């Protein structure tokens, strides 16, 4: 009986607190904090057919602003507007200047354009900002390595 009372009390309290924070518009900080671009990195998808490569620039989970730009970059890429795609990626990079996944995508597109010098420095940055704390970081790590091998092989290293 006491337990039940405690449970009910707790339950009511939870409801009270949620409604209070919901109505009063107190800085819940939920969305705003959650989307702080400096605290957030992208998460790569794992259930794709080719694990060591991306298929689309916009796959994976990203900060909402970065997601918008990656989608635009992918559209531009599919229309063969590569410079346009690169400029969207650079805008994404400016929003999250230390997001490994964005550097990887810049390197990936530059590789397709044969800009191997650029690929090398972008991969260096992708590796520098790779954080083990990010979910599925191994996937991104593997992809960075794969692209590195490919770029090195092309440059004859």
């Amino acid at each position: 009986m006491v337990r039940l009372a405690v449970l009910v009390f707790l339950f009511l309290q939870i409801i009270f607190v949620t409604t209070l924070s919901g109505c009063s518009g107190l800085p819940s900080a939920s969305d705003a904090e959650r989307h702080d671009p400096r605290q957030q990195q992208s998460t790569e998808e794992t259930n794709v057919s080719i694990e060591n490569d991306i298929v689309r620039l916009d796959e994976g989970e990203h900060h909402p602003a970065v997601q918008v730009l990656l989608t635009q970059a992918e559209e531009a890429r599919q229309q063969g507007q590569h410079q346009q795609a690169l400029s969207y990626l650079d805008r994404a990079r400016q929003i999250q200047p230390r997001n490994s996944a964005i550097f990887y995508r810049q390197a990936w597109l530059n590789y397709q354009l044969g800009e191997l010098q650029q690929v090398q420095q972008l991969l260096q940055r992708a590796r520098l900002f790779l954080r083990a704390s990010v979910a599925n970081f191994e996937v991104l790590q593997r992809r960075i390595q794969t692209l590195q091998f490919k770029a090195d092989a092309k440059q004859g290293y």
Partner: protein
Amino acid sequence: MTTAKKPTRASKSSTKKTAVKKVPADKKKAPKKKAPQAAAPNKSPRSLKQKLWSWFWRLSILMILALGTWLIYLDAQLRSQFDGNKWTLPAKVYARPLSLYPGLLLSTEQLKAELQWNDYKPVSNVVMPGTYGRDGKDWIIYRRAFSFADQVENAVKIRLSFASGRIDQLTIDGQREGLVRIEPQYIGGIFPAHHEDRELIALADVPPALVAALVAVEDRAFFDHYGISIRGILRAMKANVAAGRTVQGGSTLTQQLVKNFFLTNERSLQRKVKEALMALLLELHYSKEDILQAYLNEVYLGQSGRRSIHGIALASRFYFAKNVQQLNLSEVALLIGMIKGPSYYNPFRHPDRARTRRDLVLNVMAELKIISTTERINAQGKEIQVAASGRAGQREYPAFIQLVKRQLQSDYRLEDLQNTGLRIFTTLDPWLQHATEKSIQKHVDQLEKRAGYNKPTLEAAAVVTSVDGAEVRAIVGSRRVRYFGFNRALDAQRSIGSLAKPAVYLTALASGRYDWSSIIDDKSVSVAGQDGSLWQPRNYDKKDHGKLFMVDAMARSLNQATARLGMKVGISQVVDTFARLGIDKYIPPYPSILLGSLSMSPLEVTQMFQTYASGGFAMQPRVIQALTTSDNQVLTSYALEGRQAFSPELIENLRYGMQQVVVQGTGKRLGRTFNTTKIAAKTGTSDEQRDSWFAGFDDRHLAVIWLGRDDNKSTPFTGASGALPIWQNIFQRSGLEPLTPLVDLDWAWVNEYGQLVAKECGGIRRMPFMRGSLEGRAFAGREISCAEAKVSGDKVDATSANNRETSVDKKGGSSWFDWLF
């Protein structure tokens, strides 16, 4: 004859010569013919008359032919200039657009300022593009349509909600969005030599009241005449005769356009005729609408320094910080009134004259029923309100624009930049620029007062970049921030003093022979130069600080210890480090460079520190993001470049030392102000305090500040007392984000001998080490028992902080080897 002569003189063509030659030829013949004249007096009067007639006709025909040719020439000239691009358009330079997205840290103060600098008007009900307002706690912004470098975007109504200083939700037309941009602020142009600036506008975008007012005041018969108006001339003559002086011009709008567009300002009858003819031709070829549109874009409406303001679009931005469409009746009337004399009626300088003129224009408008009497009374009741000078239409960033020009000139011809209306999208952050300008202005004044200077003596410069991308966010080239002259940020070559030290310590760390716990000696140094002169650097406090941890020598900026260390690691190695950091000039391998006896501009210093800030990537500070043609074809879009010059780990290790500057050294004051010591920085003071430097970065921005005198005399300021407060103020205004580590280093306790020990075994300081460098060594006291701890060898001086007096070269430091031992 007189009528025929005028155009010939004006045309400057060969017809003039022929006409002039013919007349004396005629006269010369006359006396010769006088002899036969005497013999036959009856015949001569008729033949002379006939001859004169025939000559008159011949000349007339010649004149008409010449006039015809000239007209055809004028016509061709007129059409070639009037068709197509009528004006050379200066390149337009834009700041970075303000991107808005959930999670963005953005103060409402900044948002408001950026909107206002961008000519957005605060309103209670947001229904027009270019306005903004509040709805409870939310912000509503009606973003204008704009051609960004990468895409054209329509006008959109944005709603923003904030939570704990960040954007919480972003909606567009009720739909949640991830990202939207406010169009970038126009920050200046790259002008041709005549400095003519204008913004083009289509007639359809000009409010009808403005056109009506223009016609009413300048040329009432505009829609009825064919380029020149006899009635207008007569009326002007009448008015002028009545007044006894020139009070009215009889020129039509077409003539005014011709005068401004094709002709010079010369006042002569010949020019007047040319003007009239060209006006007729213009009316023949072009519609009244074409002519009006050209007039509205051509008209001269004022001066801003060397830059001349042309066209009503630019003028309304310049005087009222508004689009033409946003002008109210009072402003329309003032603009039209100013055409008569832009400097005489300048509302900034002569508000009373401007007001009288405006009221006159409003009277005319009411008289002609363009506006009602109520409208007239309302408009005349308004004060003359102009944009705060230095704001909105007048915001200019000369130092930044100079760098834009310089970086572009390596890829483009200056002519193309000045003439073809290119659009240049840059990296300038107006908010940071504002913070930098304000900080410099405030502190330079304060420092001067403190130094007791009674007239402007100090100068300052600053460069602010983003740490990761080397994008230049702000530049100030002088304390007079709107000054178009000598740009100290780019061109002042000043001795960098202790700003060189991180390069020395980086060289030491990179050698693998040193870490921050290495014990080095701060004993006085004496080095004999090749010419026999002695180099004997002293510490700033003229004291000897004994043996100390390497990190303390860096933090406290000790000259003697750094000089010794530099000599040990090798001067050529240090020179090599400068080159790898991106310093692209010859550095002589003299010992004095170890203490910064080399000159650099603040921009070059920025490049050097950029490598530290970016985690080892040597990057050129970059100002241009993209470049498009006037019809929006992207010419170049500049991407992130840069090679990795040092490993991130090595740089992270160096950054520990630079943070100690803030923790315990010359930058200690920052730790107290910002409540964090996660700032990497270095002070710099050159010999005799001629230069005061401060270079430092947080997690987002790197800022380099220089303070000194143009005449290179000494000042009472060190890096810490002069340039540091400016740096501090910039980051106070723009916000500071504590540094986050690039990579993880290994950490261990050391004792006073610099040995790795457990904390409880006499560990006095916890220090970072390169990853893996601790393996196999006595680590964290696990392999050394407390009892085993060494009791001999180099030991930091406990008294070092007490500053013992040193004896200068007691042992006679003539041999440059003596200090090695």
